[in-house]
């Protein structure tokens, strides 16, 4: 009987373990897969002729002659659309008043919709905003915009509550000069826009144009790199020295206990508090920079990851066999030399793992960066400006683009691209940590 209970308990624990692992995997997939799938859309998508014109016009990339030839063909294909619009414009004043009143707002919606879809009509002056100079650069969005022309989105209040309905516009214009536009948009959209599979790896390094409507996330990636590297530059030497002190020099006693509990408390402080502290201390009290800056952000992030660096380094140092230390001391090495030549090299894998994981943390942190370093303007920060200038950063700009951007819906691909890139950077850092640990552990065991 007792044997049986033990067996059942055993099975239950095993099953519980499997369940936990399965749930975690499922959750991870549920979170990561959509991010990566949608994020990939920033790098690989079906681009239109407008995309190729934009790349040529804004970045000077692409074959000028080929784009020009394609553009000429596309313009020829678009001619009937513009002719129909012009003809209807001439026709409109002659219509009866009631009919005119009925058609005018719908016509305006169509005309504006065409400008959004295909860019400004030929002969019109170029708009000021870059986003309006070109038509839809991405096929998926172009299809949506075409649908907005073909159908009017209204609300149906007839039933229980309200319901969104899409009413076709074509019947309204039956018999007018505008009528040919609708079948063209429905059937000939491809020849109007020429969709083609497009790879845009430079999304990672390109600056953004016109508030992320075009271009990439280069300044944000660079800002994140600055902040993470800067934080490590400050936190690593401090953390290792502190860990060496704790493990090799400090004598057990109330002072050490107090210092240790300080480090542990520091590890438990919410990151937003670090941000506020960084603003109050580094910027307002120490005046390390006139305002937000990469330096202030790096200092704040360094403080945030310092406990992690100290603890992982301490663990790594504590795990170095005592025999190594004794061997070095017995050969007449001083304590400092022993630390430098034997203990730290042997502890290096553990220390590196801690560093790389802390770096991932620093790269992803948002709250401290908002207070001390990040701005939403996607401006490149040169290395000489890191001491005084704020920078865009993936974490903060992701939040900014998703919540405060003027056209959140239009730039979904940038938001997902940014999220996927950030996750990828952090995952890559963690993978690096695993590889380093595995590699050096092998070296230390043989």
């Amino acid at each position, binding site marked *: 009987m007792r044997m049986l209970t033990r067996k059942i308990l055993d099975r239950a624990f095993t099953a519980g373990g499997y369940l936990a692992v399965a749930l975690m995997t499922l959750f991870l997939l549920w979170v990561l897969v959509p991010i990566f799938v949608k994020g990939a859309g920033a790098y690989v998508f079906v681009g239109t002729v407008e995309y190729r014109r934009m790349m040529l016009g804004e970045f000077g990339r692409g074959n000028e002659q080929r784009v020009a030839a394609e553009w000429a063909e596309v313009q020829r294909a678009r001619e009937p659309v513009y002719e129909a619009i012009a003809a209807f414009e001439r026709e409109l004043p002659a219509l009866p008043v009631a009919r005119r009143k009925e058609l005018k707002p719908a016509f305006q919606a169509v005309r504006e919709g065409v400008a959004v879809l295909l860019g400004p009509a030929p002969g019109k002056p170029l708009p000021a905003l870059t986003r309006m100079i070109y038509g839809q650069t991405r096929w998926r969005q172009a299809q949506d915009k075409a649908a907005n022309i073909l159908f009017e989105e209204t609300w149906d209040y007839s039933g229980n509550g309200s319901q969104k309905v899409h009413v076709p516009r074509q019947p309204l214009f039956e018999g007018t000069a505008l009528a040919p536009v609708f079948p063209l948009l429905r059937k000939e959209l491809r020849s109007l826009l020429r969709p083609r599979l497009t790879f845009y790896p430079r999304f990672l390094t390109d600056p953004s144009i016109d508030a992320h409507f075009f271009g990439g996330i280069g300044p944000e990636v660079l800002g994140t790199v600055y902040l993470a590297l800067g934080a490590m530059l400050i936190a690593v030497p401090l953390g290792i020295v502190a860990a060496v002190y704790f493990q090799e020099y400090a*004598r*057990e006693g109330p002072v050490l206990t107090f210092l240790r509990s300080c480090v542990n408390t520091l590890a438990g402080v919410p990151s937003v508090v670090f941000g506020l502290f960084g603003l109050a201390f580094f910027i307002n009290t120490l005046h390390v920079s006139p305002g937000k800056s990469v330096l202030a952000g790096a200092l704040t992030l360094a403080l945030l990851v310092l406990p992690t660096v100290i603890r992982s380094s301490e663990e790594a140092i504590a795990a170095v*066999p005592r*025999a*190594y*230390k*004794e*061997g*070095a*001391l*017995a*050969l*007449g*090495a*001083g304590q400092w*030399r022993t630390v430098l*030549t*034997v203990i730290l*090299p*042997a502890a290096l894998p553990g220390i590196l793992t801690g560093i790389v994981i802390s770096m991932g943390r620093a790269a992803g942190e948002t709250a401290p960066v908002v207070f001390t370093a990040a701005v939403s303007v996607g401006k490149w920060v040169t290395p000489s400006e890191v001491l005084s200038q704020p920078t865009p950063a993936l974490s903060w700009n992701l939040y900014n683009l998703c919540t405060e951007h003027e056209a959140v819906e239009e730039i979904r691909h940038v938001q997902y691209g940014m999220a996927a890139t950030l996750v990828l950077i952090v995952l890559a850092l963690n993978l690096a940590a695993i590889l380093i640990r595995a590699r050096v552990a092998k*070296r*230390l*065991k*043989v």
Partner: protein
Amino acid sequence: MEDAKQKTKTHAEAKGFSVFYRQCEAVKRVDLAIPFGLVTAIIGPSGCGKSTFLRAINRMNDLIPGCHTDGELLFDGQNVYGGDVDTAVLRRRIGMVFQKPNPFPKSIYDNVAYGPRLHGNLSKAELDERVEESLVGAALWEEVKDRLNKNALGLSGGQAQRLCLARALAVRPEMLLMDEPTSALDPKATARIEELIIQLRGRYTIAVVTHNMQQAARVSDMTAFFYEGNLVEFAATDDLFTKPREKQTENYITGRFG
């Protein structure tokens, strides 16, 4: 082992020397003179203070918190625990080989060169020479000369222990302390280490702590028997094993306890 019976010069000498771990007295007022150039074995059951005594000679016990000493321990006529003693210099003059082989996780070459690099600015050629000389001295040169840049952790236990010996020799010490140098090795490797001890005899003063009484009998000129922190008997090895003066020694060497 004829000269063991002659009166020889003393190299290290304990005079009323005690070692305490906090309140506990691990070595009790020991008087012991380790002769110059000979092999002195220290035997005794576990916990008798023999290792503590050995590690006191080059002050390795300093690492243990709460460890302190009383009385005098002279090396070359100078008190090891005197205020002006630089432990780094002392440990350079008194090399040590530990119970478990402890090569650093570095290349074989770097292991042997570690000590010389600490203490002198040898040129590359001089350093190469020193490494070779030390490895030859530890009878390891032939086995490793083609893989000096390989990680020392790839060596077998016996090779690793000889590497540790070479590492200690490379500093050119005057005395060698060996703390149960063969207890982690198989019989074949043990035999090689023992051969080495006999070879090194005369060039270095050697003190070896061992559990193994046969080993003490095979390699040493003098043997000290420790029991519960006291030095029970110290005599020429042949005498101690054939005609012990103390009852406790006799009981121990005949295997009645230990």
